[in-house]
């Protein structure tokens, strides 16, 4: 079974002081994950970025697995990040107002995460403003498209509308003759329709304060 999951964290919206409090981060960061911060390349990250990277990976992994197991409960302390690999040369990913890619081959922070004995791979972006993650089972991240957009901070309903519009704009650039619409499944993941016919395209959407993000996996003619 295949799926997809993503997440985005706007760093302006997190409480840095609280993040550094063990009472806070111990609610979802396990001792083995905390030990990863002893590795020099990882310890070069600000601690709060490390903590929210873990959160972002866990949330993405949960969204991946929730599509396959509708009864799954989000339990971040039981989703375990095992490896974080920070490449020597990080992709110079500077997310301006809009950033989109279909090449997740190299230059991103990567690693492995386990959820219910399932091993997944992740790719993440960290900069001064945000942490964004995509999770897939295949370490090559083939045929995956990923976009991030900065918006003027809107309320949650508007963020939700804007991320759907952002996704559809990209899809129309690939399939200009389609007539797409989106609906939400009973467990919350987006389902793409073309001319009111359900497609099999795997899509995940995320929003947090002034950032929205989509990811989708192309599978032939969707």
């Amino acid at each position, binding site marked *: 079974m295949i799926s997809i999951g993503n997440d985005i964290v706007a760093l302006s919206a997190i409480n840095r002081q609280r993040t550094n409090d063990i009472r806070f981060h111990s609610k979802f960061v396990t001792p083995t994950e905390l030990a990863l911060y002893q590795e020099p390349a990882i310890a070069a990250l600000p601690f709060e970025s490390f903590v929210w990277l873990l959160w972002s990976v866990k949330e993405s992994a949960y969204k991946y697995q929730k599509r396959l197991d509708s009864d799954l*409960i989000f*339990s971040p302390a039981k989703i375990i990040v095992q490896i974080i690999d920070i490449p020597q040369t990080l992709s110079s990913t500077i997310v301006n107002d809009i950033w989109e890619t279909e090449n997740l081959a190299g230059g991103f922070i990567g690693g492995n995460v386990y959820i219910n004995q399932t091993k997944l791979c992740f790719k993440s972006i960290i900069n001064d403003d945000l942490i964004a993650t995509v999770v897939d089972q295949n370490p090559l991240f083939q045929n995956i498209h990923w976009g991030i957009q900065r918006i003027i901070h809107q309320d949650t309903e508007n963020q939700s509308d804007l991320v759907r519009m952002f996704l559809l704009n990209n899809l129309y650039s690939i399939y200009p003759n389609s007539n797409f619409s989106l609906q939400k499944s009973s467990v*919350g993941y987006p389902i793409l329709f073309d001319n009111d016919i359900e497609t099999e395209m795997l899509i995940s959407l995320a929003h*947090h304060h002034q950032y929205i993000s989509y990811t989708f996996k192309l599978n032939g003619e969707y």
Partner: protein
Amino acid sequence: MSRAEILEELKKVLTPYTENKEMLAGITEETDLIKDLKINSANLVDIIIDAESQYNIEIDFDSAEKMFSVGNCIDVIADKVNHSA
């Protein structure tokens, strides 16, 4: 503490994390924190920490994962409050 009293206190805990103040005022035990109150999942840990402070309790991993609806939150808080009394 009765469930009604916990519910009233819980509204104060949830207030900073939802834009939907009208729905918050009328929450029931069936209200879902994410689907109905549109609380961002990134704030779920904040809510647990704030609830710990509000009720002077400690909420462990296993209990925290049950706190996705108002009723579940009240179950967990009532259990912890009663055990610490």
